[in-house]
């Protein structure tokens, strides 16, 4: 783990699941990994709605949202990204973990997903990439804040 990438204040990450699937072993383990790496993790049980997650992301002022999908819920992630944009939360980076078929990955990336972690992803990879994603998201956020003050 690269400690230089640690943010101050620490990265805030929302780990959640939208849609119908309830498999949560992955989201729970990843939440614990990110927490143990010093990030502030907001974890929810499965079955959140798109609107509910957008609301929570606003209230909790997060840098990154990690969506876990093991049973085709990734098919509504593009809609989630639209909802996030419509709520003015463009600066929040969205990463996805779980089972995403190869041929359906490009559409997620095109929709704006910043990273996809499939089965077999190791702790170090996930932690490093989420930390880096959070750092970029925070920069973007700060830049736009300065912009609005000016």
């Amino acid at each position: 783990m690269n400690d230089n990438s640690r943010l101050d204040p620490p990265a805030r990450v929302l780990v959640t699941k939208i849609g119908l699937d309830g498999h949560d072993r992955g989201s729970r383990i990843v939440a614990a990994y990110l927490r143990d790496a010093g990030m502030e993790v907001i974890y929810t049980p499965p079955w959140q709605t798109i609107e509910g997650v957008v609301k929570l992301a606003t209230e909790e002022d997060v840098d990154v949202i990690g969506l876990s999908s093991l049973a085709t819920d990734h098919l509504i992630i593009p809609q989630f990204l639209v909802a996030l944009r419509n709520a003015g939360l463009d600066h929040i980076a969205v990463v996805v973990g779980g089972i995403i078929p190869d041929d359906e990955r490009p559409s997620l990336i095109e929709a704006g997903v910043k990273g996809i972690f499939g089965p077999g992803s190791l702790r170090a990879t996930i932690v490093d990439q989420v930390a880096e994603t959070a750092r970029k998201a925070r920069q973007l956020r700060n830049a736009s804040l300065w912009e609005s003050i000016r």
Partner: protein
Amino acid sequence: MTKDAVQLSLPGFDQAFGHWRTEYQQQIENNHTIRNRSGIEINPLYTSRDWDGERYLSDLAFPGQYPYTRGIYPTMHRGRTWTQRQLIGLGTPEDYNRRVRDILDRGATAISLLPCNSGFRGIDCDEVDPVLLGTCGTVVNTSDHMDRALEGVALGKISTAMNDPSPFTLLAFTLSVAKKRGIPWATISGTSNQSDYLSHFIANHMFYRLSLPGSRRMLLDHIDFCRQHVPSWNPVSVVGQHMQQAGATPAQTMGFTLSTALQYAQDCIERGMDIDLILRRFTFFFDISISFFEEIAKFRAGRRIWARLARERLGAKNPASWRFKFHGQTSGVDLTEQQPLNNIARVTAQAIAGILSGLQSMHTDAYDEATSTPTAESARIAVATQNILREEAHLCDVIDPLGGSYYIETLTDQMEEEIEAIIKRIDAAGGMYKAAESGLVQTMIGESALTFQEQIETGQQKVVGVNCYQDDEDVRSIKATERPDLARMKEHVRRFTAYKEQRSQDDVRRGLDSIARAANSPSVNIYAKVVEAAELGVTHGEIVSCLRRELGFGQPLIVA
């Protein structure tokens, strides 16, 4: 024979053993401790000092004889091999019907039905984004849908396994279809898979939707109803698979599962049901991981412990009640996204373990299940794997072929000890219901999941393509994922909405009112009312939301 007698009969045993041990210690390069997934230390060699056959009759006996360690039937796979039961379900009822008739035309005698995830959540298709509908199972919300799904299927002759969690609407729809077709309910056979609400509450939040006390009553009413009206149906499948998939060790899984079965059996006894009429219809469903010998020992120990619990603790008198019948599914957790064709080898090893354990029915995973629902090709290879093992590998020639192996028998004894310790711990917590309610089981599983993941992270547990033998050029053929036709699905939803408007609203009200009334009078069987409502055209979502209102909705208990 006593231990002394064995050694007397083998003059020079001690000396020879000592000689081997010295040589082993001199020559072994990396003499580190090896433990299996359940934490049992594994020796480099087992001999008659570890297991000597002294307790053969009491601990093993012969196939079909109590305590059934060597198998629950006298003939086992020599007489009848396992049932091949692959899960199917995708798209609309019409899509499912095409698939199921194709399978039946190819000679299948048993079918399965996996419903859409929206069904597991307790909602109808008109409440869900159509993009998600039918992607993981078939959309069946009414008796009418079931009629279309089973068109041309000889109900009453074909055994049906349905993933049908509480409140068991799929069986209710099936019974309604049977009545309409004039098929007696007594001939309807199959299994309510996913009837084990405790396993859902603990480890698989896909299905959870009624409060714990509500689910408990619903299951008992379901068992009682089937006993009276659908006697060939297996109303309970006790599931270890979810817990092992969620991270429980093989020993923990067996312990929790047997504790769950004890809980259901005791609940039935408290209701005044005859235990010998109930237990013969209990079946079990497990994960088969790639920890080969450990899995075999897990199943052999499980058979023995269950026979003793059923006979001694539950007081069952009929041998049919003591038999531990189980379905095994090769473990998806062991499959990797990297180098996906390697998964065929993993599934083969898992399936051999299952066969050598003497299972009654099996599902083999397709090699691409780590990334998607199987394609037609990968599903065919999964079935072929079973066919090759059965027809070519001579695995079924001998019953319990590993029985009597010093290692297997020692490990079976050690796993038994571990499993019994877990059952004791659950007993001390007041039984499985209480242990799930308090979060004890969830905490234990969560800890095991983290420990196992740590072993992979540190390389202590090797996974080819993940933490060793990584291939920089991991060439994967990118295939097109099969998704239900969106236009057809939208049409299905439109028809459903029209159906809801056209049916008799009085009937719907009547059906739901009687469910609500039954929910508030403990002496009335709620499931009988669910079946009546299904016949009156009430939908799955309407039945579930009525029950949620009356019996309470439960959020899964998350223990981080």
